[in-house]
């Protein structure tokens, strides 16, 4: 018996290895410090004039620019020194207005011929290289106001149901007040509302003939609302960062009202900043009927058509919170739209509201919170003050043709990027309160340089020990196993680079472990070959039987582990997901190298000739 592969099989294996080596290569090139500029909303890029202005300003400030690259909507300015990064960002954002986002970045320096093949290096995690640090402040006042508005709306509905007439609702700070025509109505309302809402302290005021009911949030309920706002925002931000495909981010609470978001190294930081800080929300409301009283309606401008406005009912049918899934697509005319699926409650509410209003108009209201730093003079000193603004605009107003159910689409968006991002925001859930950027910095690796060095050295020594062990135990076959191990490592690195996985210290340890399992596959085969030799098979037969019989063990063992890894990947988040990626890729590459590559090498070296003795 002779062990041979047909030529195509050797070629196929060779091609996979060469491709693997090419895609693993970019990891050998270091990254440059850079700043990235991209448009805040539309797809349009930076014009030449602005770019020249920034370039000159940076050079005037003594900052060394190594390269400027423009790619579609975003511009990357590479700097010679990491120390200039923050300064450069400040200069650039001063020149540009709010339509652009400027973010610090680490730019990869993969040579063009590699980059043109789509090759890029693996990302290193926050622990190994650091990344970008955003500190976000949650607007607690707005959280309270929003909650009060929701309560106010519910109270009005309650009063209408009970046919108690009210005149006006006012919300300020922590108070909500309702005005009634007389004391009788007020006291009746007070009793009714008190049963439903226990988070208020109630008091009354008289205003001439009218009577006012004042409800103030208790301290506990304020704390509760604020805690809820932070927790909800944390969850939403985690979802958003995960939706962006950022591997191994860090999202945690800091202090009473702030949230830290840290993203590892090479990322589209400008896009990340836009998404992390985005506060877009949707509300669906009916157009007010002409005879509705003023206290029940609000007037909004259209977002894309200046001067046009519409009067909408104060009551919200549903908000973005009821959206269970959202995707961007295009209509027949190639205009961007967002397909929306509602959850059960949302579907019911939407159906109920549209069923009884066929023929009337329904509006989609787009709400966005912005903040701006302004310098104001206070007691003769310059003080930075943040001004928060909220923009509300109608993006579409359409006639209800039939009762809407769980899924429908909305149009009227400016660009496909906007549609894409709106869909992402709706998917990841809305923020319980608006957030504002308080700080943005680069951050160094969280593991010390010494620790990283020791960690990497110990991994190298560990691998060396394995290589030596295989050589001593399996001699010539040990060499083959070690070659296969090297190829396995290169393929794994290549696969992780192609997928844009992020490497952290536990990830490196995970790689070591999958290499251990790769060795295991070879050990299984070699032990089986030895066993078959002892049972009296000839050398070629033993090689053949060794590989054939070890296959079922290797496949079963690896597939079960792969099953675990794949499920951890699809359900887990953050670090668990990262580990699952490394593990699943490692299992696939180790099965390939153990079953095909090492076999091919054995076939080439031992295959086509009669053998008396095997060095195993």
């Amino acid at each position, binding site marked *: 018996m002779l062990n041979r592969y047909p030529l195509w099989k050797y070629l196929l294996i060779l091609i996979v290895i060469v491709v693997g080596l090419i895609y693993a290569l970019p990891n050998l090139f270091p990254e440059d410090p850079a700043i990235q500029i991209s448009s805040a909303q539309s797809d349009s890029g930076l014009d030449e004039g602005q770019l020249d202005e920034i370039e000159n300003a940076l050079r005037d400030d003594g900052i060394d620019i190594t390269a400027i690259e423009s790619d579609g909507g975003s511009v990357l300015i590479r700097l010679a020194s990491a120390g200039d990064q923050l300064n450069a960002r400040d200069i650039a954002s001063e020149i540009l207005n709010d339509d652009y986002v400027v973010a610090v970045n680490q730019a990869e320096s993969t040579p063009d011929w590699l980059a043109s093949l789509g090759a890029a290096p693996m990302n290193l995690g926050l622990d190994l290289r650091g990344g970008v640090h955003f500190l976000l402040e949650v607007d607690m006042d707005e959280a309270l106001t929003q909650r009060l508005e929701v309560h106010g709306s519910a109270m009005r509905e309650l009063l209408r149901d009970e046919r108690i007439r009210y005149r006006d609702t006012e919300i300020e700070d922590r108070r909500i007040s309702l005005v009634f025509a007389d004391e009788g109505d007020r006291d009746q309302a007070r009793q009714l509302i008190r049963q439903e809402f226990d988070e208020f302290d109630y008091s009354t005021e008289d205003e001439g003939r009218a009577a006012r009911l004042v409800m103030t949030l208790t301290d506990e309920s304020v704390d509760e609302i604020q805690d809820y706002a932070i927790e909800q925002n944390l969850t939403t931000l985690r979802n958003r960062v995960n939706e962006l495909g950022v591997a191994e981010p860090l999202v945690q609470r800091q202090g009473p009202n702030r949230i830290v978001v840290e993203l590892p190294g090479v990322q589209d930081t400008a896009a990340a900043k836009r998404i992390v800080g985005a506060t877009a929300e949707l509300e669906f409301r009916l157009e007010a009927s002409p005879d509705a009283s003023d206290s029940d309606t609000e007037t909004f401008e259209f977002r894309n058509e200046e001067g046009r406005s519409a009067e909408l009912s104060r009551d919200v049918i549903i908000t973005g919170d009821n959206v269970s899934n959202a995707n961007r697509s295009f209509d027949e005319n190639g205009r961007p739209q967002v397909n929306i699926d509602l959850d059960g409650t949302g579907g019911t509410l939407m159906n109920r509201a549209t069923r009884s209003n066929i023929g009337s108009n329904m509006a989609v209201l787009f709400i966005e919170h912005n903040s701006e730093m302004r310098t104001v003079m206070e007691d003769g000193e310059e003080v930075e003050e943040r001004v928060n603004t909220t923009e509300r605009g109608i993006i579409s107003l359409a006639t209800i043709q039939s009762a809407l159910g769980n899924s429908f689409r909305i149009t009227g968006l400016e660009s496909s990027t906007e549609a894409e991002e709106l869909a992402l925001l709706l998917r990841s859930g809305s923020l319980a309160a608006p957030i504002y950027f308080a700080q943005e910095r680069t951050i160094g690796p969280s593991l010390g340089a010494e620790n990283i060095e020791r960690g990497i050295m110990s991994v190298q020594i560990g691998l060396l020990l394995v290589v030596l062990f295989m050589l001593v135990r399996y001699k010539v076959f040990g060499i083959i196993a070690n070659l296969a191990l090297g190829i396995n490592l290169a393929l794994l690195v290549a696969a992780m680079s192609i997928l844009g996985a992020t490497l952290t210290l536990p990830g490196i340890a995970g790689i070591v472990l999958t290499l251990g399992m790769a060795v295991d596959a070879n*050990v299984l085969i070699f032990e089986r070959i030895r066993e078959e030799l002892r049972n009296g098979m000839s050398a070629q037969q033993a090689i053949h039987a060794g590989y054939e019989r070890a296959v079922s063990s290797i496949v079963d063992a690896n597939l079960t582990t792969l099953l675990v890894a794949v499920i951890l990947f699809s*359900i887990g*988040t953050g670090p668990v997901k990262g580990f699952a990626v490394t593990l699943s890729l490692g299992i696939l590459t180790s099965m390939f190298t153990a079953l095909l590559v090492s076999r091919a090498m054995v076939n080439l070296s031992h295959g086509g000739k009669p053998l008396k003795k095997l060095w195993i």
Partner: protein
Amino acid sequence: MRQFDFMGKRRLAFITSAILLIIAIGALATQQLNLGLDFTGGTLVEVKYEEAPSLDDIRGTLEDADFRDVSVQNFGASTEVLIRLQQAYDPDVGEEVVSLLRDEGTDVDLIRAEFVGAQVGDQLRDQSGMGMLLALGLVMLYVAFRFQYKFALGALLALLHDVIIVIGVFSLFGLEFDLTVLAAILAVIGYSLNDTIVVYDRIRENIRKSRIEHMPTIFNEAINATLSRTLATSGTTLLVLLALLLLGGDLIRNFSIALIIGIGVGTFSSIYVASALLIPLRLQRQDLIPAKKENDDEEEELP
């Protein structure tokens, strides 16, 4: 080659496993886990130096002063440093840290001190837990399909056995349990499963081709046949892990400890939990070789 009578000692092994499990569960029940900064949150201190300091020195100083789980990072500029500690926040921590650092003879200013929340949110934890359960369920189905349900039961119990013991050791000795250790536990699951399936595969092969009915004898042969492979693989992996433990520094110490224990226990459990349990479960040859007669009956029922 010498044959060891593994199955003959299975009673002793069951007792050992039971004792280990009781100790592990007892430790978990009485003193919980010493969770790290990733899970508990702590205090964040931002300081500014006159000149760029050595981050390793800062970490050393703080660890000598008994602060736990210290992470020190450059923040924006080389002179600004962000320190995270696993220490319940109180207003004095910032000053305490700065005065410690000032004692080193350098000029340090406190910029801010605040508490930081956990990196692993409740939602993340629940989701991962659900994921793990689902993963185990599917693995059981796969093993039941490829082997037989008794094997699936054995593999599941072996996995639980390994994970509980590793976590138990961390609880017993108050070792810090952070995200890297969680990764190690996941790796232990992968490894233990791998080991168990390799032994199972050989048991299945031997049952099919052997003519004897005495299961302990067949198991012994199968385990002895895979023994050199088991030792070689565990040996090489343990070699790597020992290198990580002895040379890798503080940060991967707990990771290596978790894996070393896990692989030791995992190797033991693939023989004495996963395989030996098949005996009280009354595994028989018929379980692996479908009885022909039943199939005939089914065919007859077809019209």
